[in-house]
């Protein structure tokens, strides 16, 4: 068992087989740096619980293909990313920090799916980006491909 500590001082025990899906922790264990509790100063307990839930479910991913559990995992993944926008980014940041490739892919794909049909205004608001383009530059981008700004799928709502 490996002990992880969130930035709000909560400790979690995780099986080594699950936790080594994180390249970062795998390297720590290999280098003999994981003898006691591993502090994770960038991750709060709420996010860490989600990450551990994912790691535990994907523990035997290699075997899933043989045992026919692939559909089960697919369903789990679909349910897993069904979370709020802010929460999704907390998990993405944690997966990036812990270097868990599959989790990063899953969550970034979900973020892309949610952004895909958004208007420019909605994207800025969702990602807290300030527009620094001039009006002329904005118009130029629209003139280059006006069709990319049109279509019934384009959604101006935030979330």
């Amino acid at each position: 068992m490996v002990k992880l500590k969130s930035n709000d001082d909560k400790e979690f025990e995780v099986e080594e087989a699950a936790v080594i899906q994180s390249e970062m922790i795998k390297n720590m264990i290999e280098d003999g740096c994981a003898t006691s509790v591993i502090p994770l100063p960038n991750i709060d307990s709420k996010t860490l619980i989600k990450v551990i839930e994912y790691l535990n479910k994907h523990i035997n991913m290699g075997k899933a293909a043989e045992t026919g559990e692939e559909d089960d995992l697919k369903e789990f993944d679909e349910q897993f990313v069904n979370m709020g926008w802010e929460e999704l980014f907390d998990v993405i940041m944690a997966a990036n920090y812990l270097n868990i490739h599959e989790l990063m892919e899953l969550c970034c794909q979900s973020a892309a799916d949610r952004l895909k049909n958004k208007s420019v205004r909605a994207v800025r608001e969702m990602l807290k980006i300030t527009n620094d383009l001039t009006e002329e530059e904005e118009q130029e981008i629209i003139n280059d491909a006006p069709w990319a700004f049109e279509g019934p799928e384009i959604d101006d709502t935030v979330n």
Partner: protein
Amino acid sequence: MHNNKVPHDIIIEILLKLPAKSLLRFKGVCKSWRSLIEDSRFINLRHDRCKSDINSHKFLMSCKKEDHCYYYSVDAPLQHDSVVSLVDPPNVVSGINYDQLSGVCFSSRNSMLLLIFPYDEVVFVRTIMIIVQEIQNKTCLA
């Protein structure tokens, strides 16, 4: 995220998963998104990733009626509900009179565009990102 800006490397990961239409629109989000989306390294990286995804492949077909050539883009894994879009001619080679073309074929696997002219002229072009305007969507019915 809570008031913090999303790091640039995470933005890149997310943008790499977006279709061309969204990327062309999102060039208008801010300066750094515009330079990223127009950056040839980003375009190449995106192309390498799309290559392995069969669902992102498309056929480009041409059909001549009287003197005008029509172009269609079709989802590559051809199924009964594949979407067919009438598109503008692929605007990748300047100085080509598309009305003289007798055929066109596009392989999204390696982005090779084959332009066939009457008699003996055949042109191969490698395109980085084919951008075609969807004029009309039709769904094939089996």
